[in-house]
């Protein structure tokens, strides 16, 4: 994974490009402006690990990590809810840290190790967080669920690593796993079915079991 600075620049460029796309749709008078940058199709070879397995892909540079997973590797456990970094359904773990796969380009991940929901557990061999979601009915339609589960696994590690959040009262004391901390830190993962109350119970159970 590249340095945060490099990601910032790329992300801004990406946003600028997608903003132009939206403008054209919404204001036809501007439709001459944006052609050159988007018509050049360039591809790059990238190699990264997905769920422990090395994968080599040649990808259009514009391909998001999310679309690389879904459309090229057919790992559709990772969901596309908004493609804008607003819903969290595409949350995956990149070198153990959670990220919205729609907000990062696949070619930026040379050598990275990516874990998707499929890498956590399988129907006959559930990860404790997956099992807790089933037990507490922490989902309904299931579409935000992969993001919720990946996010919650990494989120608990963030608390254990003593990374503070907006609701952490004492920055000098060890971070605690409380319902308020869980709710705050999980707020980037939207569940429109409204399973939040159950999700927090599932996460709390897993946190308690490990602690």
């Amino acid at each position: 994974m590249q340095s945060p600075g490099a990601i910032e620049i790329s992300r801004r460029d990406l946003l600028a490009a997608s903003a132009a796309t939206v403008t054209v749709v919404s204001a036809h008078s501007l439709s001459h402006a944006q052609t050159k940058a988007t018509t050049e199709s360039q591809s790059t070879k990238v190699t990264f690990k997905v769920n422990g397995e090395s994968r080599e892909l040649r990808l259009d540079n514009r391909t998001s990590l999310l679309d690389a997973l879904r459309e090229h590797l057919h790992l559709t456990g990772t969901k596309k809810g908004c493609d804008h970094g607003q819903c969290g359904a595409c949350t995956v773990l990149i070198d153990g840290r959670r990220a919205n796969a729609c907000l990062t380009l696949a070619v930026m991940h040379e050598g990275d190790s990516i874990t998707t929901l499929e890498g956590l557990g399988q129907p006959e061999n559930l990860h404790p967080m997956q099992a807790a979601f089933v037990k507490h009915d922490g989902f309904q339609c299931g579409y935000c669920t992969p993001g919720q589960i990946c996010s919650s696994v990494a989120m608990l590690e963030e608390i254990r690593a003593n990374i503070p959040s907006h609701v952490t009262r004492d920055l000098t004391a060890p971070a605690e796993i409380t319902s308020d901390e869980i709710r705050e830190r999980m707020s980037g993962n939207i569940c429109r079915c409204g399973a939040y109350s159950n999700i927090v119970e599932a996460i709390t159970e897993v946190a308690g079991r490990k602690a």
Partner: protein
Amino acid sequence: MRFDTPATTNPIDQGKVVGKPIHRIDGPLKTTGKAVYAYEWHDRNTRYAYGYVVGSAIAKGRIRSMDTAAAKKAPGVIAVVTTEAVGELKKGKYNTAKLFGGMEIQHYHQAIAVVVAETFEEARAAAALVKVDYTEEKGAFDLAAAKDSAVEPEGGGASGAGDFDAGFEAAPVKLDQIYTTPDQSHAMMEPHASIAAWNGDDLTVWTSSQMIDWWRTDLATTLGIDKEKVHTMSPFVGGGFGVKLFLRADAVLAALSAREAGRPVKVALPRPFLMNNTTHRPATIQRIRIGAGRDGKITAIGHESWSGDLPGGGPEVAVQQTRLLYAGENRMTAMRLATLDLPEGNAMRAPGEAPGMMALEIAIDEMAEKLGLDPVEFRIINDTQVDPENPERPFSHRNLIGCLRTGAERFGWRERSKKAGARREGDWLVGMGVAAAFRNNLVLPSAARIRLDREGIVTVETDMTDIGTGSYTIIAQTAAEMLGVPIEKVAVSLGDSRFPVSSGSGGQFGGNCSTAGVYAACVKLREAVAQKLSFNSAEDLIFAESEVRSGDRRMPLAQAVADEALVAEDRIEFGDLTKTHQQSTFGAHFVEVGVDVATGETRIRRMLAVCAAGRILNPITARSQVIGAMTMGVGGALSEELVVDKERGFFVNHDLAAYEVPVHADIPHQDVVFLDETDPMSSPMKAKGVAELGICGVAAAVANAIYNATAIRVRNYPITLDKLIKELPEIS
């Protein structure tokens, strides 16, 4: 099976499987990424192409010309299908706005082209190259401005009893207030998506639909092909809340572009298209008048609602519950419909009651205060066991009072300050609110096919969908109960147009009706089993522990199967019990809020719903439906509003950053209580719906709690801090 007399004792009453807290049978698939949604179907031997939609940049007018030359030359582009080239298409029965075809623009982001390319990135880039010339027309986008031009909707919709005007005039205590609710978006997590594949004249569409048969029929109509040639599938649906009831543009565009491209095409609507390309819950302006005696008895109740829609559309039936919820001899309801050129207004979770209860249940709270009555008691005083407009017509079963009393007890209602704005904890003004919950029980025919094989495995097939509602699980429970097998022996296949037509998912009818359809098919299968095993009749047989028993005779169920599986199919059809009896579901919502005295920020501290909704088929999935609805209700109370650009005519906040649905941090632990009851008038399952009941009244309970906390009455949703801050007490 025709259901036209109240259900008597039947195998469902055993309650060995039905009614038990069984975890979702699709849970392991959904939590591991193995549940396959519409855009995710993949055949390794197929090269899929990608379609990217182009939407109209104007709200009303005509396309003068389209220039697709640059898009067609762009790298990877296979085809560009335009609304101009396709020409007028027939509109589906359930659509108000056309989905595609022709030069007329009816609303912003109406689909006008789809660009098909080898990759998603190429299709998206080329879609930006389509140039469109429009002739823009002036449209009407502001409900308040259009209110005076609103007319009585087709079919009228006005109702009444007694003499409302005289009754209201004569009442010693009166309320006359206006309430508004904004346009709202379903904002489900899975965007509309379809993959279409042609094989000669046969079309297969993987899509995300709540109603398989409605989509199939309307897709065939729109494409001008025989319905029998269309195969639609939606085994997993990433939420709908009403926006996937009716055929949408992604399916039409996928089908047209797959034909043009000569290979399967995938089309998903980008997230911003959800708000302006599809449907939304229309805004309302509601006037409520209530007159009561000093004893607290309502003598006159009137509810009028104004809403808007495109030409040919309908009103938001926000007055519906007021016809039935409270007693009172003098009554009137009326609706007016304005023509607006915003995107199509249509059903969203509890259409009618959800926005109607947002207004009515504030009015009831206000009236209780005027009368000096506790709002729980005021509601109890005005309970009715008959349809107040037609007193000869009783409710099939109504325990609103039980919901209110149980809720008040469990929530600690007596701790509520009788004086508004009187409880303060540090920086927080704290208050409690209550609202009734009410939603009618709808019934639709529903069919299913049951197969029993030699291993004793029962397979249920129905085109019913599971949009997060728990259909897979409650259908498996129903078949397991009816046939006396463990739930592990039941396989459920849903969401495929090759299966018998079900009620589908909507209007909180899906759970009750689809399981009733499975019940009917199981009754037929029981008869077939009885015959195969040479029992005299199926009626007094006991199906238990994978055996069939009559007196001393016991036979293994699977023995009824010879070489080929035993198959039975039937459909539940409903007689006139919904006409002779009013069937509704009831509940009470209790909410405690804190309002920051300095900022006016509202935080939900506690929530409880008590529901009386017939037999609860599975308390886990039913509870999830209710907490989810409570969560959406909080959004409606505090943050959800599609902001209208009244000049350009579109919803400005068309994404999940600007259209604010509740997130984890907004929602506390939620409690739900189901009263133990059955309703034999509803179906052989004796169940009713809960999924929409759960949202009805929630926003008003929040509004009433905010009033109790702050003494500020806000009648215009959502209750954002700017509406509170000016009237909050001075702080030093």
